[in-house]
């Protein structure tokens, strides 16, 4: 199975004006195949940096990451990525965007077409195959991005605030979709978010990160993702445990934000 081992990752880089930033310090994580991990934290806690290191876009200054025993040294198709927005190729229609991964591998369109059609149906875009992506709404564009990622059949899906730019209603629908896709495909998913609700709803496992230096502050194992599969997410939100956890985490993040503010004020 394709487990992800993150061993002692540190990230430190120099600033142009002198001095340096410790973006991440000693991150250790084991992510089992098929796990849905959500990562939450105040801005500047290094969650996106961590995701970029896993994706292979950044090299850590210390430590290393293995996927299925293979050292990660750069980006690769076994780690698919879904971005917040603007990562679709406007010069291709929906179908060509989704088949981009297979196309790069040299799979003929005739062979990839059934899978592409199946994925588009899964995300509910079967009627928009030949549309240009810029004609779609933001929510639909993110559906295309999900389908495009899945078409490449990655082991791990990395999501960098994929629903962050959507309006509240669309966002709720998309959260259900992410859960359904997770259950249906059994992929490992790492989801970065700044929404506490989203992290709770979607994270089978939840990491709260703290800033300066970026580190794992607290970890939770949560039942809500399982509950939410195929169910109404608003029902899940009424769960007493959910409300309690939400308040706990909000207070935690609030405290961290206050601390950052205090520190900056001291520095000033």
């Amino acid at each position, binding site marked *: 199975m394709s487990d992800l081992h993150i061993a002692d990752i540190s990230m430190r880089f120099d600033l142009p004006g002198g001095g340096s930033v410790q973006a991440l310090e000693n991150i250790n994580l084991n992510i089992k195949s098929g796990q849905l991990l959500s990562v939450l934290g105040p801005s500047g806690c290094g969650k996106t940096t961590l995701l970029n290191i896993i994706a*292979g876009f950044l090299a850590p200054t210390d430590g290393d990451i293995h996927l299925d025993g293979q050292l990660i040294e750069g980006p*690769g198709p076994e780690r*698919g990525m879904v971005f917040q927005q603007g990562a679709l190729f*406007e*010069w291709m229609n929906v179908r060509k965007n989704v088949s*981009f991964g297979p196309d790069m591998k040299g799979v003929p369109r005739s062979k990839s077409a059934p899978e592409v059609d199946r994925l588009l149906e899964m995300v509910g875009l079967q009627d928009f195959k030949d549309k240009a992506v810029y004609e779609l709404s933001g929510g639909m564009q993110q559906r295309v991005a999900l389908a495009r990622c899945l078409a490449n059949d990655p082991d791990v899906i990395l999501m960098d605030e994929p629903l962050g730019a959507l309006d509240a209603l669309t966002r709720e629908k998309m959260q259900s979709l992410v859960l359904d896709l997770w259950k249906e495909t059994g992929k490992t998913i790492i989801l970065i978010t700044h929404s506490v609700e989203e992290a709770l709803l979607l994270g089978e496992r939840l990491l709260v990160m703290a800033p300066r230096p970026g580190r794992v502050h607290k970890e939770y194992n949560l039942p809500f993702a399982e509950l939410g599969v195929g169910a109404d997410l608003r029902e899940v939100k009424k769960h007493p445990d959910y409300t309690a956890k939400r308040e706990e985490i909000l207070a935690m993040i609030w405290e961290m934000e206050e601390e950052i503010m205090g520190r900056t004020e001291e520095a000033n």
Partner: protein
Amino acid sequence: MNESSVFYDLAMETVAIMISVGSVLIFLFGYIAIILVSLFLWRLVRKSVSREKNFNSLKTVTFGDESTVVSNTTASIVSVLLIFVLWGSFTGSKLLPSFLHVPGPYIGSGEFTYTAKDVSGETASANVSVIVHRADKQADKPVVEAGNGIVNDDALVIQAYRSKLLPWDKNDEIKRKNGGEIVKVNDQPISKNNPVDVGFARVSLTDKGTLNVVPYDGIQMEHIYLPAPEQVWSRLLTIADQGYQNITLAQHLGFSLWRVVVGFLIGAIIGIPLGYAMGLSNWFRGWFDPIVEFMRPVPPLALIPLVIIWAGIGEEGKVVLLFLAALWIMAIAARSGVSGVRITKIHAAYSLGASKLQILLRVIIPNSLPEIFTGARVAMGVCWGTVVAAELVAAEKGLGKMIVAASKFQNTDVVIMGIVLIGIIGFAIDVGIRLLERYLVPWKGKG
């Protein structure tokens, strides 16, 4: 020449320019008045016609709301029509009813009398019949009887906008060499500094004692300075049919366009890869930045003399010039097209398994196309302007050559026709590229 005299000269020039600007202000205000009056009339017309109820017409705040300001088609039509009406009015165009013409030069016949006096103080009068004719028509000299008086009647034929001296004493007994002189015209005293208005002309006395007859010019433009619209049009037809100076219009046009297209294409073929290299590699960026940034602000027109020295006045020189005009623009457009690619797109492509070559071909190049089209529009505009200027300087064929040759023979109709043609073609090139752009890069501005 010392430095202060430069400043003095420039100051004097500035004053002279301010004065000429001031003298045309009256026309400017007149034009603005026409605009405002037509606006007022249009509003009256619109009030009487039923008003459409689109979304903008329901807005109460329109002043300052940029979205409510759309080009008024009526205003555009009136503005263009007015240009032609003014043009026709000031040239006495046959396309306009004559009451719209501003007063033209006096055409027709007229008469005045002069009174000559000889040394003895004896005076005698005679008539002068004058015919003023248009430049494109001949007129026969009016017949006057030979007469046998002391002074006899004369006749003059004058072309419009010209004047003529009247050697009145040729057929008279009173001669200037004998001390005879003219003292009155139409019974009004005349002297060297005191000309007489005879109704259709001004008659003055020259130093040598002859009469100078200057028919009134009116305020229409003489056709050798500004031909009427229909003359320009008919000149276009004859030149399209027979050519100008043994070179057909198609040749003039074809050569200009051919130079632009070839120069632009070579510039694009070299400039675009250069821009890509600069956008993708530190080394290439560092290598070419100083060259491109230096060459870009040099106007291509400033290179004409050097290009003529190096490549002569043949086709190579012009193509080289246009190549240089297009090269830097296209390189910079391609560079910013590459730099403008969103990093998320590149990351997405890498994590979908694309190789560097695939990313170049499938992501970077398509992503840069909108910028390249913008660059192409600018470059074609600059090339078109440059080719005309280069042809003005030296060429055998081409629209620029045609108008500069025509200007040497005062063929103003050809010059104006050429300028209009140059404008229309420049506009057509721009529209053509925009259409191509809409067809080839429909995603422009929608990323």
